């Protein structure tokens, strides 16, 4: 797409979410820290909260971008995967740019994709060659530490035929950032028979706006498992990741766990397009408002025969402030499509609380136990340490404060 077209797309508002004036941010590519060792103590703590282990125990590779500069991209010895800055990969592999860059996400989708496509490319490139299975997870972190920062990220993930990879993607901003915007474009390609587990954990601040744009393309017999966890305050996040199942036997499972404290606005969607026969998809969302605003958009589009997909969207309101809106959408475009959804939003059933109280728990403990159970979706592909961290966070859940 030529630059003129992208320039004009800079004015294009997104389909959902409040329009953000990108001119009010500082779009620089400066290197603000040289290495993770230079990061602030609060910054390092934030990384840990989003599943990034700086000791790199049980990790196959680590990528860290701070603001708009990649400060670390390293792969453990003898690990057959490629990890580098997207801009560097573009120079090294022009043929891959031709085949993959901006082929899943259209660069003129909206102003956020356009501005990211116009600039030199930040973000990470990951490739696993055919038949290669990587056991330990790769961790990738995009961190915002600079005030007023406009952060651009373009990630390209390629799993060739039969490859397997588990990615932990942690995004966070430093506690002192009072004004910032994160634009994260991710294009993921899951090849024939490949399996990608992608777990994204967010920990933004109360003054940060976030606009991820993600499209995943899954080929024949490929599996895509996506987990999204956001349990902390974020000023305004809007995303609607889309998964296209384009080969027979392709499967997608998308889980989201959301907790919105007062002052948060989360517009989190999820869409699966079942383009060919014999594809399956499942979208499960659990959301809790402790005073914040949550919009759950879910969409299953069945374009072919013999497809099956289910959408499950459950929300708990734990406060009189805020709201949860569930907007499930099903579209069948063939006679033999099986699409279903289940949505429920409301309070905790009082009989559940009393049931636990009759076993000796106080009302507050009973409520917290039910909430933890509610959020306890079976998140597959997490290393034990990260699963434990999420469970621990849930264990500290207080009905009044959130996580």
């Amino acid at each position, binding site marked *: 797409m030529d630059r003129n077209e992208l320039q004009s797309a800079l004015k294009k508002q997104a389909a959902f979410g409040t329009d953000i004036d990108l001119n009010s941010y500082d779009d620089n590519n400066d290197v603000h820290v040289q290495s993770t060792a230079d990061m602030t103590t609060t910054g390092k703590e934030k990384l840990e909260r989003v599943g990034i282990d700086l000791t790199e125990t049980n990790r196959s590779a680590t990528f860290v971008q701070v603001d708009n500069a990649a400060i670390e991209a390293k792969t453990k010895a003898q690990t057959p995967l490629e990890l580098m800055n997207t801009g560097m990969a573009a120079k090294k592999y022009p043929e891959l740019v031709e085949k993959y860059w901006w082929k899943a996400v259209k660069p003129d989708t909206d102003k956020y994709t356009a501005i990211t496509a116009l600039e030199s490319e930040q973000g990470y490139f990951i490739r696993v060659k055919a038949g290669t299975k990587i056991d330990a997870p790769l961790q990738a972190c995009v961190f915002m530490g600079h005030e007023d920062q406009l952060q651009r990220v373009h990630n390209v993930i390629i799993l060739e035929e039969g490859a397997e990879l588990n990615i932990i993607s942690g995004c966070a901003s430093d506690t002192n950032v009072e004004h910032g915007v994160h634009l994260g474009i991710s294009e993921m390609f899951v090849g024939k028979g490949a399996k990608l587990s992608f777990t994204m954990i967010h920990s933004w601040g109360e003054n940060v706006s976030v606009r991820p744009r993600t499209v995943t393309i899954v080929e024949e017999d490929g599996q895509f498992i996506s987990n999204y966890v956001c349990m902390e305050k974020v000023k305004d996040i809007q995303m609607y990741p889309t998964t296209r199942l384009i080969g027979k036997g392709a499967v997608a499972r998308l889980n989201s766990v959301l907790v919105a404290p007062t002052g948060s606005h989360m517009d989190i969607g999820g869409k699966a397009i079942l383009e060919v026969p014999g594809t399956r998809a499942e979208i499960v969302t659990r959301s809790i408002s402790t005073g914040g605003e949550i919009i759950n958009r879910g969409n299953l589009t069945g374009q072919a025969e013999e497809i099956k997909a289910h959408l499950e969207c459950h929300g708990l309101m734990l406060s009189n402030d805020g709201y949860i809106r569930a907007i499930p959408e099903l579209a069948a475009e063939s006679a033999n499509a099986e699409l279903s959804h289940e949505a429920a939003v409301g309070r905790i059933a009082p*009989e559940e609380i009393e049931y636990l109280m009759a*076993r*000796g728990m106080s*009302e507050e403990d009973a409520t917290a136990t039910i909430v933890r159970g509610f959020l*306890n*979706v079976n998140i597959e592909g997490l290393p034990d340490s990260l699963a434990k961290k999420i469970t621990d966070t849930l264990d500290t859940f207080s009905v009044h404060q959130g996580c």
Partner: protein
Amino acid sequence: MLNIEHLTVAVNGKTILRDINLHIAPGEVHVLFGPNGTGKSTLISTIMGFDRYKVLEGKIYFKGQDITDAPCYERAQLGIGVMIQRPPTIRGLSLQKMVEICGASPREVASMAKWMGMSDFLNRSVNDGFSGGELKRSELLQLMAQKPDLLLLDEPESGVDIENIALVGRAANYILQHTDCDKSHCEQPCCGQNTLCDENNPLKESRHSGLIITHLGHILKYVPAHTAHILYNGTLTCQSGDPLDVLHCISETGYEKCVRGICGRGKA
């Protein structure tokens, strides 16, 4: 153990129970008969302290303490345990965790679950998709861990197949510590209190009490009960010494005649 005096209870503004008096001494198991809709479950729910059940008059004493206004969890902590008819599903909370919450160590959970035939259910969400019999076994497993001094059972046999009624009965008995195990069962957890396993002791006198709602009385084959009551039109009419006699009377002549008959003999 439990003393209920002149208790009047309303649900959603409608009076269900009137002037109930009930005294259960330590070690006694009482049976509550009565037609559907007469307030049996209301009585058990009121003793447990569930929110919807409003005490308009009267007092409930447990172990000498006035618990009329105590919250439900305090009553549980004092030693009251209940099996309700339709327990809710707690999604995402495993049965294993639930039994631990009730007071068992992970090892105890494993052996109790094995005995209750619930080993395969420990990783499932509490009551999620359980059949009628599985629900009762899940409840009893939790109560085993809770070890209440006063056990309240609301129709423990409903929805349970004949084979499992014996298991349900024995589990209730174990919780009440009225063990029916013989020497050959000494390795089973139910026999933790089994004095038959100790040559020198006579059968230990249990101090645990129970109140059981039953229609058909199958559970009485396994749980020795001392006294039966008939709850009729919101009131406890009278009581008889032998629950099996009362059950026989009800099945022969119906509740109304039986109530009059027993009361007529002045056994109230």
